[in-house]
């Protein structure tokens, strides 16, 4: 069973002593990954697709219609790969940003947890 990335991020925020709303930060982190990925894919669309998409998007009224239209222009597998690539980049960048603020003990706890998360894919589960 695939693990919830929000839970992983909240655990990391716990370890580093993040003081604000952890769930909000975790959700915002995931949204940044998604937004970067959609923006990248949309900006690479061929011109002919852009003009068709532009016309259809104007008519759409709710999320169901919008996402239905987008699915025609953004192949799911390509989207998944783009999300993966952007998430790796953003996650590494985030950890590198907080590391200098941590003392050695906290850094060690974080690294132990990251190693555990890293093993997750092969074992298929993780203890939170």
């Amino acid at each position, binding site marked *: 069973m695939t693990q919830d990335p929000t839970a992983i991020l909240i655990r990391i925020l716990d370890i580093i002593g993040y003081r604000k709303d952890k769930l909000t930060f975790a959700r915002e982190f995931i949204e940044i990954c998604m937004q970067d990925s959609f923006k990248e894919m949309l900006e690479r669309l061929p011109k002919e697709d852009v003009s068709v998409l532009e016309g259809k998007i104007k008519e759409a009224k709710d999320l169901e219609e919008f996402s239905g239209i987008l699915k025609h222009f953004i192949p799911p597998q390509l989207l*998944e790969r783009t999300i*993966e690539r952007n998430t790796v980049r953003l996650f590494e960048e985030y950890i590198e940003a907080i590391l200098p603020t941590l003392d050695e003990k906290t850094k060690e706890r974080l690294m132990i947890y990251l190693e555990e998360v890293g093993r997750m894919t092969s074992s298929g589960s993780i203890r939170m």
Partner: protein
Amino acid sequence: MESHGSGDHGGHHQEHEHGHDATAASENWKNKAQGRGYSGLGRVVRTVLGEGFWHLGARSLSAVPKVKGVINAEVAADPLASWAAEHIPSFASGIVDATTAVQLGYTATGLGSLALGAGIAASRLKDASWLEKSIFWGSKAAVAAAHLFNPAWLPVTTAISAGSTWLALRNRHAHATS
């Protein structure tokens, strides 16, 4: 940056300091990442993207007691599913299904927040460009899917797992050679 003073201040003070610094560094990173992602987008869409469905909806719920009352009245198990089925935007491919959401423990207020947030976002994005609308709705649909269905976690979880391995290895190596 944290000051690792010795002696007088003790461990508690250091813990207090590193929590404060880590929070500030996290917020700083988030603001920069959002700023990069929003570059080239209009002011309205930047604001709506930053707020997200949940925040928009939650704000409206607290501001409109009448709506809140209706939602609270529907907290009982079965009516919630039927209420949610009527009010939540049905995401592509049945991503949001009222019964599933209820089984996963989403509260009536949470579902109402999501639904209202989507409605408010739609009205505020009326004059946004095709690219802005597409980024907004696409990312929101993907996030909604990630919150409700396990398969949608996969690319994010896989990436965090891969990034974790690399970061841990690199840190260990740096520590060993320092």
